[in-house]
């Protein structure tokens, strides 16, 4: 019985590969780059997984572009979150013939790499770079499926002012944290709040007791933190240790399950925003979450954006009926797609046309939707 089954499946596999050969089949490479080693490797790998899941799904549908069945292949490279390495891997992926890239993770790597992609006319969609400058350089190839610092900072700043009159701000002195915090400060002031303290730390620190103590003396109602979860969690913990009652507020870097895991009970009550609509509310959202968790475990942070970025890219190729970068690039600008993170369309610069931003709060060890703000 077993042997017949085997024989059958072999025959089936053979015939399948024959039919694939019979049609015109091509393999097209899509690049992905993020830090896969170093302190941010966990978030980098998350992006990689997001792209891979999207591409696996797309391949399963056997997409036909320009009369050929296209098999997409992900080429993933480690940029170590280092600007110099980012330009090298960008060139390496271009050498290997990628037709587009989803990446990079950090603004600091995305910006120098964007020059290389632009010089070679390779479309680039960053799932997570938020620095305003990325799309302000005038490169036609630069897009992102993430709001920029200004878009998110406006919402967060106004929200901070709504939570309390006195706001303290901490940032992690990275391009992301500092950029977002600066926009939040502006927006909070504009909304009538008083910014009582602006403190800074770095993205490798774990001890914030000194700056928190200093902030405590200024009795703020809200503390905004611009940075990532490995810092946000100890901040939440140390606020409790110091007996602070202020409301902790953060951006997308904090809105992660890891934040809750690391901060434990101290995470309760924290509020953080993430661009887009709540994933459960999206038509494909629940399905995406289930599939991703089955395959790679918990979503870290930007996987849904990386997933959407890959879909946006292939969608533009389908509409242009070509995988040639010069041909599908114009279509990329005209994107209008329902992704798992929200509706995706770009403005002239390649930024996301202002979409909604959703605020979440931690309740009983889970992120729960608080409200969705339309800008």
């Amino acid at each position: 019985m077993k042997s017949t089954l085997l024989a059958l499946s072999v025959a089936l596999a053979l015939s399948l590969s024959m039919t694939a050969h019979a049609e015109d089949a091509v393999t097209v490479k899509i690049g992905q780059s993020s830090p896969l080693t170093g302190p941010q490797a966990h978030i980098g790998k998350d992006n990689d997984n997001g792209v891979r899941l999207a591409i696996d799904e797309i391949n399963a549908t056997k997409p036909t572009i320009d009369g050929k069945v296209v098999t997409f292949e992900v080429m993933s490279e480690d940029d170590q979150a280092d600007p110099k390495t980012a330009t090298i891997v960008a060139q390496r992926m271009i050498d290997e013939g990628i037709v587009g890239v989803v990446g990079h993770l950090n603004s600091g790597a995305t910006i120098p790499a964007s020059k290389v992609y632009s010089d070679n006319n390779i479309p680039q969609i960053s799932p997570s770079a938020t620095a305003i400058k990325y799309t302000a350089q005038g490169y036609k190839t630069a897009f992102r499926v993430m709001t920029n610092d200004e878009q998110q900072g406006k919402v967060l700043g106004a929200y901070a002012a709504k939570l309390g009159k006195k706001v303290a701000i901490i940032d992690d002195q990275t391009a992301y944290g500092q950029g977002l915090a600066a926009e939040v400060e502006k927006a909070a002031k504009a909304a009538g709040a008083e910014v009582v303290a602006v403190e800074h730390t770095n993205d490798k620190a774990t001890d914030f007791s000194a700056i928190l103590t200093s902030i405590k003396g200024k009795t703020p109602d809200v503390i905004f933190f611009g940075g990532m979860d490995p810092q946000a969690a100890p901040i939440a913990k140390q606020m409790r240790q110091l007996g602070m009652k202020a409301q902790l507020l953060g951006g997308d870097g904090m809105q992660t399950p890891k934040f809750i895991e690391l901060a434990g009970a101290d995470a309760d009550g924290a509020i953080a925003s993430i661009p887009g609509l709540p994933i459960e509310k999206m038509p494909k959202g629940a399905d995406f979450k289930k599939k991703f968790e089955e395959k790679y475990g918990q979503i870290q942070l930007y996987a849904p954006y990386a997933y959407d970025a890959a879909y946006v890219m292939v969608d533009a190729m389908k509409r242009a009926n070509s995988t040639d970068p010069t041909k599908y690039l114009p279509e990329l600008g005209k994107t209008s797609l329902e992704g798992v993170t929200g509706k995706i369309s770009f403005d002239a610069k390649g930024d996301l046309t202002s979409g909604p931003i959703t605020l979440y709060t931690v309740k009983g060890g889970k992120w729960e939707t608080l409200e969705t703000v339309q800008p």
Partner: protein
Amino acid sequence: MNVLDYLKGKAWLTAVLLLLGLVLLPFMVEASLGKSWLRILDFALLYIMLALGLNIVVGYAGLLDLGYVAFYAVGAYCWALLASPHFGLNLPFWVILPTGAAIAGLFGVLLGTPTLRLRGDYLAIVTLGFGEIIRIFLNNLNAPVNITNGPQGITQIEPVTIAGLSLGKTQEIFGITFSSPHLYYYLFLLFVALVVFVCMRLENSRIGRAWVAIREDEMAAAAAGINTRNIKLLAFAMGATFGGLSGGLFASFQGFVSPESFNLMESIMILSMIVLGGMGNIYGVILGALLVTMIPEALRYTGDLQRAVFGEVFIDPADLRMLLFGIALVLMMLLRPAGLLPSKLRRQELAEDAT
């Protein structure tokens, strides 16, 4: 071997062949390995300059400097500020490059002065602190007055333009297409040649011998009439100048600078280049710089290797890459403790130590 023997007596022929090889190298690299390796080659040339600069401080004068990357940063930011939309300036490269190198040299003296009395590991930690201080300043000088643009870095830095020819774009010269990394390769090669020349001249000069004397025994050197203070400061200044030079070139090549490019790990990597290659020996340092830049990049191909040997990829090459690099560093050092190409003097010392 025969070819080498034949060449031994003919210095000019060797030089011509070497030059020809270096000029043709980028064509061969681009054709065989691709443009990314051209870019890696460019970075390798930058690191050769940096390593030779640090070699003056550590290799010749024996002053352990863990903050060398600060001078690289100073040079890079000088270029970035003087030729980018940030301040709306765009000075020609023959103004910026010497300015950047000179300012870096000044910083070298600035660092050197308070540390004259320090030795060994105490010097190492102070220089490390200095490097971090520079980086933190670059990261923070966006407020109250925006000078460096903070962690956001400076974008759209102007490329080098020589006689109206921008090295930032693909150019066609005599019907041959030269990509931007290709053009930069020649520029960098020129500067490397300059740095190597200066180093060679220094090595056999009074100053070079004074450095070695200080390295071996500072008190004896002072007793022999060497002004140890000035000579030490000169080492810091010279090293820093080369650092500033390569920093400026780096900024123009990459078109973007941000403080994260100038962290402590970078200093440590440059130090490992010279120790690995052979401190005090110019050829050794060049070899070290080439190896340390290229090995991690070459290790990106372990995925293909695994597939070829085992038929599948067991461990993600990205995960394996730095691990193998670490192992390579340890092994190379264990096998060649004095570096791959130790300097003659060092070899003698080693022999004496062993007895």
